[in-house]
């Protein structure tokens, strides 16, 4: 087993809490998650990217710990939990500004629809592969953490640059 996937051993090997989000189960899995991560990056202004990256870096281990609650003996890898956090972060951030409110609300609406569909239908319609299935709980935790962590994007927003 890869020393970078998320398993219970992450409690003794904490790097797994970060690295598991970068590992995928295959090219399709990787491309879909990369596409999902590209959406908030394309919607927010480039000047917000560093703060968003920092926020995701902070949220990643918290999300990893939350996923451990649902993992049992299995292993976890994938960026979609983090992508959900990014969607929630960007959605709340965009919805706060008048000029981008519509985009933020649509993004949050799409995220809510996805989570609702997963609650209703389970993980059956999500991509999976030989030996792995999607873990919808990771998406719910990611979205919740994204909303909770959204002030991280607002920090320093109104600060004027030094002369």
């Amino acid at each position: 087993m890869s020393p970078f996937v998320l398993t219970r051993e992450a409690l003794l090997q904490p790097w797994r809490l970060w690295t598991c989000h970068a590992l995928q189960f295959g090219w399709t899995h990787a491309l879909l998650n990369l596409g999902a991560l590209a959406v908030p990056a394309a919607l927010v202004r480039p000047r917000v990217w560093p703060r968003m990256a920092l926020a995701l870096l902070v949220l990643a281990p918290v999300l990893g710990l939350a996923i451990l609650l649902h993992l049992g003996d299995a292993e976890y890898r994938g960026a979609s939990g983090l992508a959900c956090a990014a969607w929630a972060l960007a959605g709340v951030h965009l919805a706060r500004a008048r000029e981008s409110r519509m985009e933020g609300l649509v993004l949050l609406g799409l995220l809510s629809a996805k989570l609702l569909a997963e609650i209703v239908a389970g993980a059956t319609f999500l991509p999976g592969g030989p030996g792995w299935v999607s873990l919808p709980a990771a998406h719910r935790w990611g979205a919740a953490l994204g909303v909770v962590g959204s002030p991280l994007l607002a920090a320093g927003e109104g600060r004027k640059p030094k002369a």
Partner: protein
Amino acid sequence: MPRHPSLFLAAVAAAALLAALACLGPTTVSHRSGLMEYLYPKNRLAPQPNPAGATLTLPLRIGVAFVPASGGTYPASLLPATVEKHLLDLLKDAFRNKPWVKDIQVIPTTYLSPRGGFDNLDQVSRLYGVSVIALVSVDQIQYTNPKWYSFAYLSIVGAYVLPGDRNDTRTLIDAAVFHAPTRTFLLRAPGQSIVKGSSTAVNLQERLREDSAKGLELAMGELARNLDAEVDAFKAQVASGERKEVDVITSQGSSLRATGGRGGAFGGFEVMAGLALAAAAVWRRRRA
């Protein structure tokens, strides 16, 4: 008194010299227990595996035992019982806290019959209430080579004080894990060690015994580490469907073959919708 005392003394001296010179030559001692001889005695063919395959329900009750020495001689154990138990306890301690282990039973070799085969393995697994058994086989060779000054042993005093023997103990321990009810081979892992040392002629046997015990302990330590890695590889193989004859049921009751990995995954629809939104936003900003 012999009629020719000088001739008698010369003969005794020559015999002593020959015996001493014989001690100066290189010697090899080997300890070996063969897994194949135990499981497939008399070149018997491997039994047909159960077509239903092996299903392991976590957490597992596991038995560990040394393969008995072949040949049907008494005692069946290759190692003293205390050494055997100490080594198996090392393995037991290494896996005691693994979440997939419920209990590890150390099975004395005396409970296994030499050349007993799978029938004997079935008996032992039922006796101990374990379905998975790790059979540990040992291959240890000890070489003793005289150093250049070992001729000083001929002085008698030299045999007590000069470390004129170079000892080399090479140990290979192999653990093969089987699911006894279905006679399915699950995985294997090796552990090896090399212990080098020297000794005087007088304490050679004692030193070889010490080196043997040290070599076994070091090899068992490496075996435990390798076994841990092999277990992880085995789980990954089951999860990916490479091991079609084996499935693992997790403590949550789900099949590892079906759900070995959990992934965070976006569906194509969400990604397309999100990208469409991003494209629309970018287009709107450019227009404004």
